[in-house]
């Protein structure tokens, strides 16, 4: 068991390293010159070279990558150029391990940017997860046990509607009607728990999280419905009925136990992907989470921030994979880790 966990983590680390390398290679293969962006439109050739040197973009890719990885492990100082640091010690910023880089545009380390944005994305994701899990599983079971009925068709039809409308449409729709026109909900603005307490935090999250949850919920309703229907045709369900077990026990003990197990994988991966930010939802609601940070960084070609966030997102997914695999050893007795 422990050997397995250690091995999985080692593989995860290697994967992460590969991810950073690929990310670096990709951005340096792109035709855009980051120095031009950093220096501005009316930059002379000479100024641009200076900026490039100051930002460390004059170094070969592998060296920049090496510096990045080193920064993640032991931290680093910015600006990257040692001469510059020596010449102007007052502008040196220390970025502690695990250092994700320094955004010249924001004049802050990427760690600080992430630290500000992450609580927003995590809050959105957690509340959305609770909503879509409860809604998805409950409606999925309901549709499965009433298969073919009006109820089932209604639920399945609604999931199609949720699929069909793009997230930004739903978000704008909620904002326009619920918040602006009818004013049944306050216009959502992220409020942290420290600022406004749990109630305000929650109230402001309801609309954006529900928007986010809606599409996932539709998927989970369909999946739960399919898994329950499938598991109820298994031979062991017939055995359970043949024992004389009550119908609801057959469904809730024997049926759901098998039906919901595959959901664990999906939940783990979906949640991990969401942690790195819900780009559309955060943009429409102007929630300053990792998604919005990514959008802004991309628009401004803020290379260090983009790289930092991409790698953070990658590590969430890798970590979630490891956790899901390990948790399977506890959920499914047939899985033996070794």
């Amino acid at each position, binding site marked *: 068991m422990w050997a397995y966990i250690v091995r999985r983590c080692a593989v995860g680390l290697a994967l992460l390293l590969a991810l950073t390398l690929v990310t670096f290679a990709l951005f340096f293969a792109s035709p855009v010159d980051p120095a031009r962006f950093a220096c501005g439109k009316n930059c002379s050739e000479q100024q641009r070279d200076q900026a490039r040197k100051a930002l460390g973009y004059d170094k070969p890719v592998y060296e920049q990558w090496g510096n990045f990885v080193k920064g993640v492990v032991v931290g680093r100082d910015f600006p990257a150029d040692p001469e510059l640091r020596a010449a102007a010690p007052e502008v040196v910023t220390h970025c502690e391990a695990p250092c994700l880089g320094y955004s010249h545009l924001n004049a802050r380390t990427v760690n600080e940017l992430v630290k500000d944005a992450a609580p927003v994305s995590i809050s959105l994701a957690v509340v959305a997860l609770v909503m879509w899990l409860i809604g998805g599983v409950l409606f999925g079971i309901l549709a499965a046990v009433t298969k073919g009925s009006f109820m089932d068709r209604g639920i399945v039809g609604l999931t199609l509607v949720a699929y069909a409308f793009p997230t930004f449409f739903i978000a704008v729709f909620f904002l326009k009607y619920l918040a602006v026109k009818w004013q049944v909900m306050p216009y959502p603005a992220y409020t942290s728990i420290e600022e406004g307490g749990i109630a305000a935090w929650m109230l402001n999250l309801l609309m954006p999280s529900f928007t986010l949850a809606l599409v996932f919920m539709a998927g989970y309703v369909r999946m739960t419905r399919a898994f329950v229907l499938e598991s109820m045709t298994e031979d062991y369900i017939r055995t359970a009925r043949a024992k004389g*077990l009550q119908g609801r026990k057959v469904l809730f003990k024997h049926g759901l136990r*098998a039906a919901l197990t595959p959901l664990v994988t999906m939940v783990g991966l979906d949640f991990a992907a969401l942690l790195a930010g819900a780009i559309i939802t955060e943009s429409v609601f102007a929630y300053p989470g990792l998604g919005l940070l990514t959008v802004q960084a991309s628009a401004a070609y803020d290379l260090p921030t983009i790289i930092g966030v991409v790698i953070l997102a990658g590590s969430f997914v890798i970590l979630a994979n490891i956790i899901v695999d390990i948790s399977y050893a506890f959920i499914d007795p047939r899985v033996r880790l070794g």
Partner: protein
Amino acid sequence: MEAFLTVDDLKVHFPTVDGVVKATDGLSFGLARGKTLGIVGESGSGKSVSSSAILGLHRGTNAVVSGEIRLDGNNLLALSDEEMRMRRGKEVAMIFQDPLSSLHPYFTIGNQIAEAYLVHHKVSKSAARTRVVEMLDRVGIPQADRRLNDYPHQFSGGMRQRAMIAMALINDPSLVIADEPTTALDVTVQAQILDLLQDLQRDFNTAIILITHDLGVVAEMADDVLVMYAGRAVEYGPCKEILTHPEMPYTWGLLSSAPDLTASTSGRLLPIPGTPPSLLNPPSGCPFHPRCTHRDKVPGDLCRTTLPELLPGHHREDHTKRCHLADPDTVFRTEILPNLAPELVEESS
């Protein structure tokens, strides 16, 4: 002897988009306490569907079940769902084919067997556990008090089948339906399992319906035999009668294709030509006629046009068969018997 179980004109029909699948179509038989009925027939002949009907397992599905099933005087088909549920596992229990898929992969063996006991007995969990250990001991699982914490995949095929038997017998049911209990097992384990069933039957006077492809098993275990083809009984009677004086070409086919009964020296294994019929569009007349090599012995087009009645044959009143052949006995003696095992030839001559 008064029959403990009587099945009368049982029909199980499945409406599908392509039409009605008549998986069981007018089946009748009886069974006394302590006796064994063997049901044989090729895959898809409706053995499992028919016996599931006795447990009421088609309730809540789209199957249409009609006819009468009397157990100890009660018509099971007329019971409410709740009344039927109370009898399931208690009075009638089933040992399913394929124990690996019939046991739940996520619960321990002990948990699953105890559950069967707890549904019908108001006792503590630890009392149920004691009972489970006792049953697992009884069916020959070594170190039962430890093995009951195992999951099904940790058991061998034979042990899983034993566990299934323990689960079926834990409430001392008066009728046990064993659906191919030994198909997946090797010969030694197969013999052990059959012995076990016979022992338990002797001790508890249980009536057993034994479903199998294997006529060798039937010869060893059954008092009566019912041969099924396309959802119907085609031959029915005392086991010894049917094995020594079969009167229906389909039964001959089963005998000739049974490795246990066909002598390797004198006879060859003769598979029945053709494939089992579709239950959606069964052949007209006798459903076996397209595969029957003896149909030209029947005058006219009778086999193709008319379904033969299930009527007493030439030997005994209680041996019935569905066949138009005028003198099946002679055909069997001259054409079929020489290919069968020598013991059988001696016995019947």
